[in-house]
């Protein structure tokens, strides 16, 4: 399988959030500060990769009738492991993400990739699919966090960056770099419906870019044939 093509698909042309439109619930709720977005994105990336690998490894021995039940057991297992590890080693992130870590169990990106990809492909391909789809998910979260945080709270890098003390804080206490006073911020963008607006704008932007490049490609091919 062509890795470049697979990467392009995961991040852009078949992006889990913007194109497949799955896993939107947590995306909407979590993308308010960079710390949360990055933490959630990386957690999903790790869980998705692990689940993809295991599902691909056992794909030939699991009976067709109970495959979904088995996928759910595998996913729930990895989510619980990550949840316990976060609680033990990064308690700040664990408390910031709250209920969304356990909810990754029902995040359709993971069961979606298990059913659509890794149950039909080799372990190696599934590993890269997990990484690339995870990167795609994380990038969308980062874009949404930056947009919503900047316009909604007037800061950049909340929880992660700190203007006053040490520049980078990893415990989620950083207030972020203040770009403009909070009085001028549109707080609505931090609320859930601000998430819908942001997501809609991002989807429209991506579709615009994709259709433009497709049109360009078609025109080029036409030129070559004539």
């Amino acid at each position, binding site marked *: 399988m062509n890795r470049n093509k697979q990467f392009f698909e995961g991040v852009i042309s078949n992006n889990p959030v913007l194109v497949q439109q799955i896993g939107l619930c947590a995306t909407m709720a979590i993308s308010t500060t960079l710390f949360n977005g990055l933490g959630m994105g990386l957690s999903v990336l790790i869980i998705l990769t692990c689940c993809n690998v295991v599902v691909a490894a056992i794909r030939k021995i699991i009976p067709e009738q109970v495959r979904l039940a088995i996928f759910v057991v595998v996913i729930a297992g990895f989510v619980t492991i990550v949840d316990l590890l976060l609680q033990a080693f990064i308690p700040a992130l664990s408390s910031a993400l*709250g*209920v969304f870590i356990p909810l990754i169990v029902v995040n359709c990106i993971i069961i979606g990739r298990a059913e659509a990809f890794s149950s039909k492909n080799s372990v190696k391909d599934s590993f890269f699919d997990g990484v690339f789809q995870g990167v795609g998910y994380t990038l969308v979260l980062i874009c949404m966090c930056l947009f919503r945080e900047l316009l909604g709270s007037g800061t950049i890098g909340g929880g992660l960056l700190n203007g006053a003390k040490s520049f980078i804080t990893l415990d989620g206490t950083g207030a972020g770099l203040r770009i403009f006073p909070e009085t001028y911020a549109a707080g609505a963008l931090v609320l859930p419906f601000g998430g819908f607006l942001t997501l809609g704008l991002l989807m429209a932007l991506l579709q615009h870019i994709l259709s433009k490049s497709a049109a360009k490609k078609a025109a080029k091919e036409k030129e070559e044939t004539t």
Partner: protein
Amino acid sequence: MSKTMETFKPGLMLLLVAAVAALVLGLVNLFTAGRIAAIAEETMNAAMQAVLPAASYTDTGFESDGEIDAIYASANGGWVVQVTESGSQGLVTMMVGVSPDYACTGISITESSETAGLGAIAGQPSEKGEAFRAQFVGQSGTVAVTKEGGSIDAISGATITSKAVCRGVTAALAACRSLGGGASVPTVTVLGGSDGPGETAVTQPASTGPASAEPSMG
């Protein structure tokens, strides 16, 4: 024979996968449980010190009533109350410091599953969270958000969480009042950390209304 196998195979496979998953989870739990418990205890201690500093706390043995989990009497007078209220997404557990004259000395949220970026702010060590929690210091009687006639500014977008915290503080204050008699060693001022033995100021157990009470809101 093969027909029977066909029938049982899916169930057996599921059992096998579940058993392996349970084994792995058990191992991970074995490695992390101690650490998680230590962090929880540390958080609790830090929360108690933050709301009402004292050298030691003793459990008053207050019977849990579904709202109040436990009341700890501070060695310096006053109490720290652990309260659980239902917020917008789940339970919110907090520590409420109560002075001998039944005023709130501070709150700290130890556990919650509120929405990140909204309700979760109430418990976070951020600027907004600190500002929200600071409002409770000195409150007494019934504590409520401004919308309900109180003086607490709710976190925008998280009114339900803010109300839950108000209810918790109100319940904690009421529980301490019902316990009555001031704390084990009643002193006029709440001292941070040190409890000097030279201080023998024994005041009357505050049976009357709090000295510095703000008009109680209903």
